[in-house]
């Protein structure tokens, strides 16, 4: 080998050799990453070009590339979507549910976290917390099943027994099948399921607050509420902002567990309130075989979500100086 002094270290051939040597030394590590690379390529990258179906009239026999292009220079399905009689209903449902949930579900976990930090008694605290996280691990299939049971229209179901014995209603009510009550039902059931879990994030942040800040408030003469107002809440603001912005990006999916909820709880009777964009795409696409149309819906949804994400981030930067990116 030539002495190093006379060799140009930036010689591309030499760099390449070093790189290859490094690679060979680390080959076991690359092998360890390989399954993940394969999985990502197979399941995330392969489907990507398929989005082009939204602009074509897809036929299974002709495949993605053999299918003819849609009319209106490919936008036929989008035009059909916007003109479809159900589109207004579906959009209204999706957005209404998302907005309701956004406004009502982001605050309670904070309240729960604050309550939990205020109480003493570690045993009680631990037990209550454990119980509150429990519904998060139970699937919506199960929770939906429980809801069908508790809220059943039969006169002997718990809800009806309670309502009738309190004299609030004279006949048994059918809540799930009632489009008027469906949205509140979604919000309340998701709160039941997720408030506990949602509070974990805030509890972790609160646990990291410097105790000297609390002492400062105490010395300045502040009590419990002052501490919360001047120390606890400001510390969780940035976390809350991030949660909020990320939530905005899911509005078109109904935000939260909406799809699972709606999938389980939808019935013919409540469809005017329960048909969301995802459910509509599913029924028409996977069940109804109109693959192109359903893909167009998916694309529409993703684009709107992206726009919402960027807007929410921008708005937040303007108003509170904090943002995600």
């Amino acid at each position, binding site marked *: 080998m030539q002495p190093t002094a006379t060799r140009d270290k930036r010689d591309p051939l030499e760099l390449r050799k070093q790189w290859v040597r490094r690679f060979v030394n680390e080959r076991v590590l690359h092998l*360890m990453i390989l399954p993940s690379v394969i999985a990502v390529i197979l399941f995330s990258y392969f489907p990507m070009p*398929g989005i082009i179906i939204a602009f074509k009239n897809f036929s299974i026999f002709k495949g993605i590339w053999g299918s003819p292009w849609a009319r209106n220079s490919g936008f036929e399905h989008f035009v059909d979507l916007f003109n479809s009689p159900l589109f207004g209903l579906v959009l209204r449902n999706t957005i209404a549910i998302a907005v309701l949930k956004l406004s009502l579900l982001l605050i309670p976990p904070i309240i729960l976290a604050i309550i939990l930090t205020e109480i003493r008694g570690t045993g009680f605290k631990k037990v209550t917390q454990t119980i509150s996280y429990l519904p998060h691990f139970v699937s919506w299939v199960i929770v939906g099943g429980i809801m069908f049971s508790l809220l059943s229209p039969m006169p*002997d179901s718990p809800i009806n027994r309670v309502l009738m014995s309190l004299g609030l209603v004279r006949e048994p009510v059918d809540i799930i099948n009632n489009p008027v009550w469906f949205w509140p039902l979604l919000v309340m059931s998701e709160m039941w399921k997720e408030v506990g879990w949602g509070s974990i994030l805030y509890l972790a942040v609160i646990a990291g607050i410097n105790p000297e800040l609390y002492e400062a408030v105490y010395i300045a003469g502040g009590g419990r509420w002052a501490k919360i107002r001047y120390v606890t809440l400001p510390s969780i603001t940035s976390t809350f902002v991030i949660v909020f912005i990320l939530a905005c990006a899911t509005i078109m999916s109904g935000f939260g567990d909406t799809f699972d909820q709606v999938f389980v709880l939808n019935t013919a009777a409540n469809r005017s309130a329960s048909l969301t964009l995802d459910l509509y795409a599913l029924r028409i696409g996977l069940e109804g075989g109109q693959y192109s149309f359903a893909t167009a819906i998916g694309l529409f949804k993703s684009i709107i979500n992206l726009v919402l994400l960027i807007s929410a981030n921008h708005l937040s930067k303007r108003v509170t100086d904090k943002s995600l990116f």
Partner: protein
Amino acid sequence: MMRKARAIDDPILILFYSMLIVWSLAILYPFYYVVINSFNGALRYGLVLDWPRVFTLENYQIIFKDDRLLRAMFVSALRVVIGSSITVFNCSMCAFALRKQRLALCNFYLILFTIPMFFGGGLIPYFLNLKRLGLYDTFWVYVTPSVFQFFMVVIFMANFREIPDAMEESATIDGANYFRVFRSIFLPMSMPVIATFLLFAGVGQWSAYFDNLYFVRKESLDTLAGVLLRIITRSDISQYMSEMYKDWGRTQADTQGIKLATLVVSVVPVVAIYPFMQRYFIKGIKIGAVKE
């Protein structure tokens, strides 16, 4: 002499305690109701506060003798075991390789993994892709797509960085290769995080219903969650039970008992494991997330 403030003295605290108690009861009651009524043989259900009106094990007997339901339980259990172990193992392995970020091609890998979080084809292209890959209507469609979870890899990476280099070096000096180091040092030292993710992945596999409904056709591949979803949304469940059920000649009202019993069978494993895992997962989340 200062008297320690007692909780009872503070009305706000009393309010907080009561709210928490009410909330805990609100969470527990629906589970209680379902369990109690699954043992209820009477045709009247209602607001139950203690014991079933007519205690019976019949609902469970029917379920555990039903071939289709037993098969569904078996398929679900299988996918929990296989799915969660290969997912957790693969993600930890990948995180180990990426942890120092000094790897050749490291940035390439990270970019490769990050892009799909922002772009995707949507459901239909995903479905068509599954068919093209030959996974449609097979058991593997349940466990392979979830084998890489970026969030899991990130948390493992954060966790692995906490492990001191000295441990790794002493092993390497003794002649261990990378995989050995991973297996014998990093894995055992990350048990809380591993337990956490096994729980999450396991619960995800146990509860998954969508792939059963849309990516699989054979009855023999039905999962418990899939069967459960189908029976709770219908009044006539005989089409989902095996031949035996039709011979029973049960009336409609009794299907409620069977639905509830199936529901309980679906919930019990999760609720039973949960308190034990809870020890680990709070620690696991704090290690991974807060230290970011």
